[in-house]
């Protein structure tokens, strides 16, 4: 590598319990360079960053940083080595003062006693260096997230960091705050500090980054100057779809039933700050509707809002031709909605519980007479649905945590199918599960729709959406920017709506564009 490369990671391998997360990944960052690192969930970018910062140890490969071969064994070590990380949730001590957060552990001292006057002055000076004028004696939590990030950057400068890693720093900032952050990033660059910038907002990458590394399936699939890479190319390399192929690709999906005419779900102008703004959704019987969008586009939030996990603050939901005002998931479930979240561990399974109990959790009230659970009926349900979904387990008494991801997902699907719902909401139903189970689940969704269910499905995989859905609504920044029916439904159209690519206008994205910008506060 050349002299002016600050960081060279090459041939990095990493496996978790035998499952490879990184396969020969590489990342090169030059001095004073703002470098974009992108990839879908599970592409391996956070694993790569965690190896860089010492949170994980690599299995194979080499890392050279500032001319020396390094292998950090803890985040503390990498920090001492000159790498600072700024997370989306700022990893600082929020109740302490700004000065302390900038200088903790490095306060100026006299005879071992902290010299507060000098500490405050030094913190103020460093912050002023990046044009932030705030009262450094206030607790950090009194300031907005944007300021907290600035403080984290100031700390990086105080510790003489050469490389600052920013993991989705803009995801909870408003436009003005983003602008400020960018100004500081440029300042860092001019001072010779390099920045690795992770974001899913493509516009931002083009505004602030000069170089880019794209990751997919644990490998580095593209690296180079960002100006040489168009947005559409970028998205297609991220998703692994060749732009030309995409345009020509035919539809090879399953045999699909024609959607019925009766609308099950009709949501109008849903509002739930900060991620859901004026979303309209319709799902008919026998119809699979997809929700597409990059991470942070508000697709998960939209689904949760419909399900009343976070009830809407505005708009109207009609369910089976009746206006409903669900306050909790309990209400939505009672009326016939089912929801399987994207985070199986946090929002789905009860890890220590058996397959049997996990499967029937939502159905329990209906298996109960006078407060007593009918075990025989429970057993019948478990057998029927575990069989139908082909759940592989040693016994129904086995704790669900011992099952593979795919089988856990099947149990969770069974939890909802045994409820015989009218509407099934699936957030990333096939994420992180093996190929066989994935195909089974996709086939099942299509079958279920054929039987009269309405399905609302979120997926990061375009292929899954295109092949499985009758209709796809694309969200960007919490707003619907395109609704593609069979006929217009193609990967390239979804891609360009997601990427907001001006050269490939979609039917609705132009119309929404003005509104999008005006609506941003």
């Amino acid at each position, binding site marked *: 590598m050349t002299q002016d490369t600050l960081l060279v990671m090459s041939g990095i391998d990493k496996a978790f319990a035998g499952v490879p997360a990184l396969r020969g990944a590489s990342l090169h960052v030059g001095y004073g360079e703002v470098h974009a690192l992108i990839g879908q969930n599970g592409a391996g970018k956070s694993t790569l960053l965690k190896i860089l910062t010492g949170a994980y140890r690599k299995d194979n490969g080499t890392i050279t940083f500032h001319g020396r071969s390094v292998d950090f064994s803890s985040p503390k070590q990498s920090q001492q080595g000159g790498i600072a990380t700024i997370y989306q949730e700022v990893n600082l001590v929020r109740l302490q003062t700004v000065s*302390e957060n900038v200088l903790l552990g490095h306060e100026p001292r006299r005879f071992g006693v902290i010299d507060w006057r000098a500490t405050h002055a030094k913190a103020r000076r460093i912050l002023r260096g990046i044009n932030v004028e705030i009262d450094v004696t206030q607790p950090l939590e009194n300031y907005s997230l944007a*300021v907290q990030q600035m403080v984290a950057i100031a700390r990086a400068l105080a510790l003489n960091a050469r490389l600052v890693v920013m993991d989705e720093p803009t995801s909870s900032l408003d436009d003005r705050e983003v602008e400020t952050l960018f100004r500081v990033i440029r300042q860092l660059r001019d001072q010779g500090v390099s920045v690795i910038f992770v974001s899913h907002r493509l516009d931002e990458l083009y505004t602030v980054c000069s170089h880019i590394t794209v990751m997919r399936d644990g490998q580095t699939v593209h690296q180079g100057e960002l100006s040489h890479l168009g947005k559409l190319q970028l998205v297609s390399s991220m998703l692994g779809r060749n732009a030309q192929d995409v345009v020509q690709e035919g539809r090879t999906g399953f045999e699909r039933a024609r959607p019925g005419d009766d609308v099950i779900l009709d949501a109008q102008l849903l509002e739930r700050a900060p991620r859901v703004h004026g979303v309209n959704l319709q799902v008919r019987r026998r119809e699979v509707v997809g929700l597409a969008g990059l991470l942070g586009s508000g697709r998960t939030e939209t689904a949760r809002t419909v399900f009343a996990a976070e009830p809407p603050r505005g708009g109207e939901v009609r369910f089976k031709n009746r206006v409903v005002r669900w306050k909790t998931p309990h209400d939505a479930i009672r009326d016939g909605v089912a929801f399987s979240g994207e985070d199986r561990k946090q929002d789905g399974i009860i890890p220590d519980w058996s397959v049997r109990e996990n499967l029937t959790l939502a159905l329990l009230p209906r298996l109960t007479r006078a407060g007593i659970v009918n075990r025989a009926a429970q057993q019948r349900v478990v057998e029927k649905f575990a069989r139908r979904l082909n759940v592989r387990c040693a016994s129904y008494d086995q704790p669900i945590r011992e099952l593979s991801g795919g089988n856990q997902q099947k149990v969770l699907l069974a939890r909802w199918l045994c409820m015989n719902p009218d509407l099934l909401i699936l957030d990333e139903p096939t994420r992180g599960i093996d190929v066989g189970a994935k195909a089974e689940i996709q086939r099942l969704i299509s079958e279920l729709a054929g039987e009269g269910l309405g399905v609302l499905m979120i997926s990061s995989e375009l292929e899954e959406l295109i092949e499985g859905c009758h209709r796809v609504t694309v969200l960007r920044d919490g707003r619907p920017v395109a609704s593609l029916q069979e006929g217009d439904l193609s990967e390239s159209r979804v891609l360009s709506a997601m990427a907001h690519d001006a050269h490939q206008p979609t039917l609705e994205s132009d119309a929404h564009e003005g509104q999008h910008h005006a609506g941003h506060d």
Partner: protein
Amino acid sequence: MALSLPTSTRLAPATLLRGQGALVALVVLVAFAAFRYEGFFTLYNASTFFRYNAMFMLIAIGMTMVILTGGIDLSVGSVAAMTSVIAALASPHGAGVGLLAGVAAGAAIGLLNGLVITRLRVEPFIATLGTFLGARGIAQLASGQAAVSVDSSGGFARLGQGDWLGLPVPVVLVIVVFLAGLFLLRSTRTGRSIYCVGDNEDAARLMGFGVDQVKVLVYTISGLLAGVAGVVLAAQFGAGQPVEGVGWELTAIAGVVVGGTLLTGGRGSLFDTMVGVTLLGLIFNILNFENGKGVISIDVFWQNVIRGVFLLVVVILQSNSTRRKGE
């Protein structure tokens, strides 16, 4: 161009009020009592009041440090009882030996707490529950289930009953400990790390602080100060008291919380704790005067009710303000 970011100083009135609420209440109560009761605003009352409450203050200072790290120490009451017995047993060898024995025994229990919490990874609540029982057991074993008289010849009793420079000796001890604690927390990196551990343990580790060492340190300090309180207890009543100290840990926790220290750690100050403990003690002092006036008659039993209600109001206020912050 200096940027004017939205500083969003959500320094809501509630926060301010919570910070100073206890102090305001204290001032109001003192003014009220001074106006209403003859003999309240006297040197004698003040001296008696602080001499007795000094023990709670000592314990509460240690408890504050533990709570700042997000932990809790239930063992302090038992430890005080235990050390009062040990100090009384050692008192024939001289006041200094008695003091040292009591303090060392307390520190040893505290060290044990810290090690169990950091090495065995037992939750602080359970670990200190263990020493809560264990220390009480040792107190009863060592004392043979009865109060152990202190040796009156060696001047040990002065540690509880005497005066120094016109101040009750226990109060002098509190002042010394308070100032030392203030210095530790405010002006040393160790002190700052106590706050950081309770604020965000991961961040503290990332910033290079030895989280486990900090925890061991605060539990040891808490045990040590409970030891000092036990010595004062023995000296004040002229005997080691194996059955005293019941519920002291809760008095201390209540005092710390009323003072405004966050139970989840990371924020609080020794000064607030002093105010909180004084406030709680004052309520009962005032009740005594009120009863003494004979106008009304409030049972001492109301003490606990009032203390509980106080705690309730404070934690509800705390929970509201932290919840708003979290959202």
